[in-house]
């Protein structure tokens, strides 16, 4: 009974929760809002767990499928389901939301209910994006999610928040409308909005190429790929910590997920034709953005650029069309979800104390905050792809996959191990180590139990995935194998 509606529950529970939290009213009842949202976030997480435990890893078919009529006139249906590709992203979403809510507990003091409600509503929408099997449903959720994020950055963000949030909204909206045109085209060709039916739709090469570019506009902006990444550093820098975490951990993944759900299986021939283009952009992201990250003076900006470089890895993995590459890409998405989230939270912990994100304002933090410093060190190592952490799994698999295609792809990609280590560790050195830099740093207090709680949770995931990736990779084998097969068959 429950598993029949598990996905709907995971989508709607947080949204209903968000509305309930909004109903608590103004800041006089802030504590009630906090407790209520934590309860809903935990409940949603619990609801999504059976998706994993009851998941049948032996098949590539969609599971937990729900299919109801929605708008009959246009055969738009409310159709949800997960496979090995989307399952873990759903769990990542519900997990990250719990973390975000704990992390914002005392930090957010004004308009508390609205803040937590925005995150809960966004959680529901994001889970919906990962599980939608109807084109219009997917598009509606994909776009609707911009609204809470727009408000989160604009209401609780930094000094330049209005510019950043409008840029964020218009940039992603511009990309998305092209996807809308593509979705309508596919509907007119196939007579339905069923994404899985589109997988089998025969399309000519020129149509495929145009559709590919239309989807590319939406997904590349979201990933973001070089050169349409410029909204991300602005949005990250201005967003409140929670906003940055969700942006990096989940929202960027939606773009990459789009490639797997739409571009590759629906447009295999165009994907092959344009693979050189995608690989080139990915490698530019990995190498060039790595350099850009190196010179950043703002910690959040540095992590934002490091995100772009890591996402370059993901798209590289997808467009080499073998199982290692795609699995590596998905593993990298998950791992990046944990690590970038953790890194942004670490910066948030420092920011809450000193109200600065500039590297030069820190130095010798480890002397005053030893516990926090060890966490941050761990996450930095994971960001650099140290074996034993989750960062290693994805990068290793992608490089392995790239080797089979072209050794130079692998070589270029592998440079990230050097650059990643360089920019992350250099930042860590300047922030955590050395002598205590100034009187503000000298007064720092170590992380509180609440902060330790979310850092421990994330550290556990990073290590679990790094040391024992089997439970993460096992569920995706069948789906990825099916996807590889789909890409191999020409539709011409």
């Amino acid at each position: 009974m429950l598993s029949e509606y598990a996905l709907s529950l995971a989508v709607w529970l947080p949204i209903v929760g968000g509305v309930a939290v909004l109903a608590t009213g103004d800041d006089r009842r802030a504590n009630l809002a906090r407790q209520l949202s934590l309860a809903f976030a935990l409940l949603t997480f619990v609801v999504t767990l059976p998706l994993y435990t009851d998941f049948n890893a032996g098949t590539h078919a969609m599971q937990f499928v729900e299919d109801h009529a929605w708008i009959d006139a246009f055969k738009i249906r409310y159709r949800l389901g997960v496979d090995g590709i989307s399952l873990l992203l759903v769990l990542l979403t519900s997990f990250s939301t719990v973390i975000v809510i704990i992390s914002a507990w005392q930090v957010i003091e004004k308009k508390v209910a609205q803040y937590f409600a925005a995150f809960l509503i966004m959680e529901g929408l994001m889970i919906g994006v990962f599980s939608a099997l109807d084109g219009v449903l997917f598009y509606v959720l994909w776009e609707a999610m911009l609204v809470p994020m727009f408000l989160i950055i604009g209401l609780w963000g930094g000094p330049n928040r209005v510019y950043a949030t409008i840029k964020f909204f218009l940039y992603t909206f511009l990309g998305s409308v092209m996807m809308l045109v593509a979705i309508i085209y596919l509907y007119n060709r196939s007579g339905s909005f069923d994404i899985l039916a589109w997988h089998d739709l025969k399309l000519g090469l020129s149509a495929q190429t145009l559709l590919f570019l239309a989807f590319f506009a939406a997904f590349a902006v979201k990933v973001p790929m070089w050169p349409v990444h410029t909204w991300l550093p602005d949005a990250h820098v201005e967003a409140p910590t929670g906003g940055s975490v969700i942006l990096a951990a989940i929202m960027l993944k939606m773009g990459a997920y789009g490639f797997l759900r739409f571009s590759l299986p629906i447009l295999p021939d165009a994907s092959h034709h344009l693979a050189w283009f995608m690989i080139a952009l990915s490698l530019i992201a990995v190498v060039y953005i790595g350099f850009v990250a190196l010179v950043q003076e703002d910690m959040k900006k540095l992590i934002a650029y490091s995100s772009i470089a890591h996402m370059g890895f993901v798209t590289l993995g997808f467009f080499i069309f073998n199982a290692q590459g795609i699995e590596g890409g998905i593993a990298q998405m998950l791992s990046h979800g944990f690590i970038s989230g953790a890194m942004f939270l670490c910066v948030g912990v420092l920011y809450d104390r000193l109200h600065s994100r500039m590297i030069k304002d820190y130095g010798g933090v480890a002397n005053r905050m030893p516990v926090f410093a060890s966490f941050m060190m761990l996450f930095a190592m994971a960001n650099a792809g140290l074996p034993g952490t989750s960062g290693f799994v994805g990068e290793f698999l992608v490089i392995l996959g790239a080797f089979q295609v072209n050794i130079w792809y692998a070589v270029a990609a592998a440079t990230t191990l050097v650059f990643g280590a360089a920019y992350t560790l250099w930042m860590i050195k300047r922030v955590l180590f050395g002598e205590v830099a100034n009187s503000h740093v000298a007064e720092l207090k170590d992380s509180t139990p609440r902060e330790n709680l979310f850092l421990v949770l994330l550290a556990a995931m990073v290590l679990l995935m790094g040391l024992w990736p089997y439970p993460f990779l096992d569920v995706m084998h069948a789906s990825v194998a099916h996807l590889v097969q789909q890409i191999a068959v020409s539709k011409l």
Partner: protein
Amino acid sequence: MLAGPEIFVFSMACAILVIDLFLPARWRALCYWLAQLTLIGAALLTFKTMTGASVLTFNHMFVADNLSVLLKLAGYVLTVFVFVYSRDYLQERGIFRSEYFVLGLLGLVGTMVMASASHFLTLYLGLELMSLSLYAMIAFQRDSVVATEAAMKYFVLGAIASGMLLYGMSMLYGATGSLEIAAVARALTKISPNDVILIFGLVFVIAGTAFKLGAVPFHMWVPDVYHGAPTAVTLYVGSVPKLASFALIARLLVGGLEPLAGSWQTMLMILAVLSIAIGNIIAIAQDNIKRMLAYSSISHMGFFLLGILSASPNGYSASLFYILVYAVMSLGAFGMIILLSRSGFEAERLEDFKGLNQRSPWHAFLMLLLMLSMAGVPPTAGFYAKLLVIQSIMKVNLIPLAVAAVLLAVIGAYYYLRVIKLMYFDDATERSPIQARWDMRLLLSFNALLLVGILPWVGTLMEVCRRAIQNLA
């Protein structure tokens, strides 16, 4: 009794006018209630005329079909909302007179006649009745200079447009030998679509229609009228006559001149693209929200034309859906301006929306919904409206047009976002709580919540629109 609703509303409007003469000032609210009762009564009468088929009467000058029923019902609902929203506004400004309601009802009768027109004369009659009521309504606040100026402009330009339309109709009469729409359509199948007189007449008809619609390059009156008229009148101008525009186009172009679709398609395409582009771009430069919404309405008319120019049943129903959703959005947006206005103060500058989230989170949320819906952001009804018209033009392979339209929609999103930015991200300069009657609050909330597009009514309305245009052509 097919014309029962028109006769009823018209007689009631006259009756209210007479009753008002004998009423003391403090009893004037009675006129308001009578007007509302009229609308309810008309709705009941309209339900009776609903047959599902297309029935002609008055020597084939008047038709009752699904489309006319739908447009009339929508007209009543919109007018009820308009009257509720404007009640306090009019009272606070000392212009709470029965004429407002009478003119509103007469404008509605004009719209209803157009919705049921099956003859060029009936169509023209309805159009003029509606336009004349609008001229008077705009000039209603006699001592306002901007309002009288707007009324003057609208009257002069509107008269030219009516003249053009009439001239075009006479050309068509010359070419086809009939004024009855169905007969014109029949005659056209026998004449070459490149006949000079025919094309000449068509150009005039399209120009006149575009004037009434407010499509670029015939849009000059729109910002002045929206801005100059008292907000209670703008509310009316922005909603009910849009139904009349659809009726005009559906009866004239679709019902009568569909054999010439090849010619008017190109003309409408130019009008549509220019309207979307210029409407959206100039709206960015406005700091008066009524002017901004005027330019926004120009761009919405462009989107509306997209569905029509696809010249397919699919597109007509998409446009009908679009115009209905637009009327609801426009109603809500102007309703919100009225809500924020008080006696002696018009909340018509964009800054007046600053910090609305601090003053009243609920009303800020409603305005957020309205703005997102206008911008076409899911999950609002405005998104489905855009989805349908774009689907319809892509179906007839006008893909570059679809791409242009969605890209221009992104430009449009900017100025709607700016309103949201003012409401949510800026500090309030004005902190007084929002005062309004309970019925206005309730209806306004209902109005905005209607736009939450995940609700089932969206699908139902699409189906209703599809049926409405079934026996049109």
